[in-house]
């Protein structure tokens, strides 16, 4: 089992400034899953109850001179602490850029090693960062779990395949920051959030307890997938009534998720996506949020980067 690659300048920027801060919010530990073509950061794919997040990069988005081999179709997976990884990348950057020279090629190598740590009798696996500065070279070892067995990798790949189902209707969130601000304040009101998404482009998020109902409705959002025209007779009804009628008509789905999970999913804006879409998976299996990244300076989707989260549904709701 071998893995060795050089982080590119673009790769370092993506990880250090955008994805690692976002992924850190998803959970401390993630699975790093490396294949011949892709690098993936996976949260909660194997243990059921948390928010699942899948960040996938084509190898060219992050690395140069990417070499991977294993007896398991060149696939390697292990668990890693995101905050340690973030710290290692950050200090590597500061070494590379000392004297303000900027990052030049092939100075930040990352590889999988087995080492005997001090005061230990057994060697342990590490992801090692080797950074060459002008005057110094620094090696940082980030401890990782024992690499996955063949069966575990298959299990992870299966979970990953299952996490790819697309909702039939996706609506674009107009302003992630605004929604995040709102949801952060909602956290003080209750724990369970009802989310309704309609084919008309309506997104309704609402908390209801015995004492209070607070919600926000966004209308006329961009819809991807199945869409429909909002019936004119509904126009003057309250948001709640309209949503309930749309669900009855089969034009909307509604699920209940943890407000904490929803707030976490919004933290992904730290990865600086260009847009975000929410949708409810078929049969109300989960609430999915898909982030889209554009090729810098264009409105074209950058297919080498993808990020999406799946929020477990607490109550199958009306779907």
């Amino acid at each position: 089992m071998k893995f060795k690659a050089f982080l590119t300048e673009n790769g370092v920027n993506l990880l250090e400034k955008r994805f690692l801060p976002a992924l850190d919010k998803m959970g401390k530990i993630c699975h790093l899953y490396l294949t011949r073509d892709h690098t993936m950061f996976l949260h909660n794919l194997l243990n059921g109850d948390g928010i699942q997040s899948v960040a996938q990069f084509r190898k060219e988005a992050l690395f140069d001179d990417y070499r991977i081999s294993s007896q398991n179709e060149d696939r390697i997976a292990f668990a890693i602490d995101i905050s340690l990884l973030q710290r290692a990348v950050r200090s590597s950057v500061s070494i590379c850029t000392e004297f303000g020279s900027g990052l030049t090629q092939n100075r930040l190598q990352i590889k999988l090693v087995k080492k005997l740590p001090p005061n230990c009798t057994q060697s342990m696996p590490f992801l090692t960062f080797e950074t060459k500065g002008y005057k110094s070279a620094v090696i940082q070892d980030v401890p990782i779990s024992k690499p996955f067995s063949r069966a575990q990798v298959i299990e992870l790949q299966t979970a990953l395949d299952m996490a790819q189902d697309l909702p039939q209707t996706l609506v674009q969130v107009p302003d992630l920051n605004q929604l995040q601000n709102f949801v952060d304040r909602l956290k003080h009101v209750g724990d369970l959030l009802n989310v309704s998404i309609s084919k008309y482009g309506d997104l309704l998020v609402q908390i209801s307890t015995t004492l209070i109902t607070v919600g926000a409705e966004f209308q006329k959002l961009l819809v991807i997938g199945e869409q429909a025209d909002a019936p004119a007779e509904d126009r003057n009804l309250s948001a709640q009534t309209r949503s309930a009628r749309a669900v009855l008509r089969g034009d909307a789905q509604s699920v209940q998720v943890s407000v904490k999970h929803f707030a976490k999913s919004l933290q992904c804006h730290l990865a600086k996506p260009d847009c975000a879409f929410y949708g409810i998976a078929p049969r109300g299996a989960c609430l999915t949020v898909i982030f889209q990244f554009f090729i810098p300076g264009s409105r074209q989707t950058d297919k080498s980067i993808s990020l999406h989260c799946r929020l477990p549904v607490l109550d199958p709701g009306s779907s």
Partner: protein
Amino acid sequence: MSSEGPDLVCEVDNVQGIVDALTAVRWKRQQDAVVELSEHGVVLIVEESSCLQAKVYLQRELFIKYEYGGAQGRPRFGVSLGLLVNCLNTFSVPAGGRSSSTIEIRYPGPDMQLLLKSVDSLDACIYAEIRTRIPETISWDYNFEPAGTTPLSFTVKSAALKEAIDDLEWPGSSVQIILQPDPPSVTFKGEGHGDLQIDFMYYVNTDLLIAFSCDRQVSYRYKYKFLQATTSNIPSSVIRDNRGSKLTIGRGGMLKVQHLVSVARPSIPHPHVDSAGYQQPSRIAYIEFFVKPEEDESTIND
């Protein structure tokens, strides 16, 4: 829905100001408040153990629209203060890139709820319904009467008052407030685990003690936790605006503490406001606390 109109439909353009004012009387997590509506405005009342009462006056001038349709008697309802504040807070999120949002407050809803909704954005709307209760009768009427012909009162910088009361936490339990005309001064004295005395001298610290009125020495003791409640949640805007708080001792030693909280339109900044400076008087929420003195034989009475 009833055929009669609602008791109140009003609109607020500075939700944060209202949140600040209500937060000032939120001294613990679970507090039941009574809200009273009238043609003059909205009054929210909270109290504790018949020793401490606080009122927030939101006069109709604070609202950009105020339509009172209430009957003869002033409609009253009970509501959880914490829930109301947390709910209003969700509305203080800037909507659609705007710096502030306007909300409509309506009472009662079809099920006697308090209804709130944002009204200034067409495609995004925040709404809330808060369940109200039939209010309990206020157990103790805080009749505040002047102690004599000359009022016993002083006005102190809110920041200094808060700091003094915070410092008195260390001796704990109870705090004695002494007003004396000669030399004109106010003394806060805490005795408990130790002694701590804080003096505000009228002529020495003119920028701290702004006004002073007293014709004879008086001294009363107040429970520390009640005194602390009067300043523990003073909104930061009060400190920032460098405002003063007025304390008055009434008949029987009843202490009245008054704060002023700005509910100014957030889009009009007032860069050079000082305590005496220009502020639209109509854009101020008045907050009053009434604290009963401890029954104490050692106090010098009027």
